[in-house]
């Protein structure tokens, strides 16, 4: 089986170990820098030399970027793990079982999952810092933090892009699902481990690209990059398109990998009827990703060409609405890519915490699947202000209807909560808070689905608050719930219950105070994308900013707490919550097969009635 050895002896390994002291990311950075310099110079100075052009032009930055990303991927290990074997060379890639394995190409789904978790958390903090800068600016009605509104708008764009494509889309899918889906399926590996290893390393490349975009110039469009404006700005938008391309490719690869994992890597006896809810959620999300991510990638490639060739596809002489339509065709499914795993996790965590049989499971699955199916039918509600009147009604209809399958997730969780023996732990608290927040997000969503109301609230802080309720309020809160819930599995240690609850209440109060007020400031006439606004809104904005800083500190508190307990927490047993899904029955240690032999599933995972046998039978030889 390990044909990788292909004549490798221990001496070779030892030699390579000595040769490579620094982790391969260093080599990746070097190769990326070389790739960028060589190709950028080639394009801007040799092939496409124009008088008065700077050293880095839009075209040369694009080509140089492509070379840099390829260099980076090859450098972190794709060269040894993918390219050389592809052309018939033996694999020469050993992964040390120490910290260095997180800084190199890895095919172990647990390592990849942790890499994703670290990268996502890092980008969350950085993009959160951008949000703090925005809130700082908005404390005052006049410009005072940023020197010009363009710089503010660039910050808005970076914040939105990174939060969307490297936190919202990735945190639960790339991070926790990469780690836990194979475990929940009772498998030792994801379906396509090498692709999975590659997928992670695209993410930091994309994040870095977006954060470095100001080097090419401002871009004032925000994360939506609406077309005629995107063509007017200085060139920062080039790195937006490219960075998003890298990050979405990463998500696409994860989606393909996890779909196949769920379908093909299930342990014996894990039938579709017994598939964990998180599995259903990830399956639904992955299908959404597989369809819609290539759509936005093509749209952005066209926009990029529009900019660097240049064309005039989306200008006045072309069709500006076409860009918007293509964008939102992806843009709304994206929202469900973000929240569907959160819905699934509620239904995963609550039965365990309540030690209670999952209520109406089939409705929960139906809800997840129908949200997925409907999500492609609602996108144009982002365009009520610019579409034809006749198009409003159908999109309004589907937008309102999507709340029905969404409601099924509530049905399942509330039914499960009723009569449970609830363990009031931090994950429980976060899930309940997340459900409250999404309720607010959903209610305001119903208001926004009404075209007449939408025409007033669109492009104001009302909408801004609405989608932060769905993204931070539900997805990020659920992310923290999952982090606390699975911390014993990730680290073998337990967090501190008091500090955990404190963190939960802290972010809950800060979040609702900040974003709750935003609904009202929006109704009072606060529009989006402004660094400067009329004086009468200053008091409210000042108060929002204060709570926003509190929220930022609250997140920091939670992350510090989790990190601390990861290393110093009280050691805890195999299955502290008495969960029944398979991940609780293995010992996940990166670098080591979890299940040996594979478990054999004999009942569903959500039955807590007295006489249920423990889910996986004692290991049998297959």
């Amino acid at each position: 089986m390990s044909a990788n050895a292909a004549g490798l002896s221990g001496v070779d390994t030892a030699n390579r170990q000595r040769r490579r002291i620094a982790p391969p990311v260093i080599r990746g950075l070097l190769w990326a820098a070389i790739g960028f310099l060589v190709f950028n110079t080639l394009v801007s100075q040799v092939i496409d030399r124009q008088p008065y052009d700077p050293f880095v032009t839009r075209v040369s930055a694009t080509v140089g970027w492509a070379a840099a990303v390829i260099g980076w991927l090859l450098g972190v290990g794709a060269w040894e793990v993918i390219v050389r074997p592809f052309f018939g060379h033996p694999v020469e890639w050993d992964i040390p079982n120490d910290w260095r394995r997180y800084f190199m190409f890895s095919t172990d789904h647990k390592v990849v999952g942790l890499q994703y978790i670290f990268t996502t958390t890092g980008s969350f903090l950085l993009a959160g810092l951008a949000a703090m800068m925005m809130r700082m600016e908005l404390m005052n009605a006049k410009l005072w933090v940023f020197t010009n509104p363009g710089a503010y708008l660039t910050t808005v764009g970076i914040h939105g892009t990174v939060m969307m494509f490297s936190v919202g889309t990735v945190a639960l899918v790339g991070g926790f699902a990469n780690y836990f889906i194979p475990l929940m399926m009772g498998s030792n590996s994801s379906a396509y481990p090498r692709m999975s290893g590659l997928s992670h390393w695209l993410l930091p490349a994309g994040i870095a690209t977006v954060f470095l975009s100001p080097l090419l110039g401002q871009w004032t469009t925000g994360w939506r990059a609406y077309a005629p404006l995107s063509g007017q700005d200085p060139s920062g938008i080039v790195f937006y398109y490219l960075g998003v391309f890298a990050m979405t490719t990463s998500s696409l690869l994860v989606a393909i990998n996890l779909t196949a994992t769920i379908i093909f890597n299930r342990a014996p006896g894990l039938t579709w009827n017994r598939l964990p809810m998180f599995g259903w959620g990830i399956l639904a999300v992955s299908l959404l990703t597989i369809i819609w991510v290539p759509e936005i990638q093509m749209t952005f490639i066209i926009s990029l060409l529009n900019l660097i060739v240049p064309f005039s596809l989306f200008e006045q002489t072309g069709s500006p609405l076409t860009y918007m339509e293509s964008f939102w065709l992806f843009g709304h499914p994206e929202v469900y890519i973000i929240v569907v795993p959160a819905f699934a996790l509620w239904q995963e965590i609550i039965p365990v915490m309540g030690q209670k049989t999952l209520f109406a499971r089939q409705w929960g699955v139906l809800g997840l699947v129908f949200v997925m199916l409907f999500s492609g039918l609602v996108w144009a509600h982002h365009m009520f202000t610019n579409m034809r009147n006749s198009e409003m009604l159908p999109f309004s209809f589907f937008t309102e209807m999507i709340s029905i399958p969404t409601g099924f997730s509530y049905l399942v969780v509330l039914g499960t909560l009723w009569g449970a023996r609830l363990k009031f732990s931090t994950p429980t608290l976060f899930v309940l808070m997340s459900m409250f927040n999404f309720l607010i997000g959903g209610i305001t969503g119903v208001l926004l689905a009404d075209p007449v109301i939408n025409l007033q609230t669109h492009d104001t802080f009302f909408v801004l608050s609405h989608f932060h309720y769905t993204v931070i309020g539900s997805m990020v809160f659920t992310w923290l719930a999952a982090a606390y819930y699975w911390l014993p599995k990730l680290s073998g240690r337990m967090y501190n219950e008091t500090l955990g609850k404190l963190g939960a209440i802290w972010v809950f109060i800060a979040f609702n105070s900040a974003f709750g007020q935003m609904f009202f400031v929006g109704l009072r006439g606060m529009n989006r994308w402004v660094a400067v606004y009329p004086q009468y809104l200053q008091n409210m904005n000042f108060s929002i900013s204060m709570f926003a800083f509190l929220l930022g500190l609250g997140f920091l508190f939670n992350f510090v707490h989790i990190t601390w307990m990861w290393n110093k927490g009280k050691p805890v047993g195999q299955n502290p919550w008495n969960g029944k899904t398979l991940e609780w029955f293995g010992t996940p240690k990166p670098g080591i097969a979890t299940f040996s032999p594979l478990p054999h599933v004999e009942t569903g995972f959500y039955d807590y009635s007295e006489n249920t046998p423990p889910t996986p039978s004692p290991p049998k030889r297959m």
Partner: protein
Amino acid sequence: MSSHNTYTKTSLRIGPLSERDLRKNRFGMSLYCISQAVPYFLLINIRFVIAGNFVPVGLNLWLGGIIPTVALLVGIIPLFTARAALQKDDIPRVRSHVMTAMLLGLIGLLSLLFPLWFHNFDALSPFGEIDLISLGVASFYTIIALIVAWGVYLRLGKGLIRKETGWGIEATIWVYAFNAIAWTALFFTLDLL
């Protein structure tokens, strides 16, 4: 493996695939095809939104049109015969057929790149813009297909692909045929409809 190992080795299987793994790989390839078909749908959609049914008079139907379509479509055939030859473990024949497919693919690629470089109608027109983007997309996927075929060709030369381990050939068929069919559909809607 024990936890005392300081190193774990990345496993790369080139042994025979189990029936399940084979199905899994085919499923993965079909997901690749489904996801990568979406950009083509988008291109076709944008073409009709922006340029309607308009086809410029100066459009050369051969270069960047019929020649790559025929070359790519015909190129699928030798890949299938290569797979048939692999069943007989006739490696030299497999190689020569893969090489034939690669040559056809190369002809297709050159014929796509030529009009991309020397477009003989206004590029800055709604049709020209979408046509050039389409040619670029097709060239990109053709290059991917050629790289895949090339890797298989080299692995064949090293004796790494045999009758039992024939997935590489099948993967090439997937990628190559996807590109050929997607380009044909694009060409048909773009230049002929």
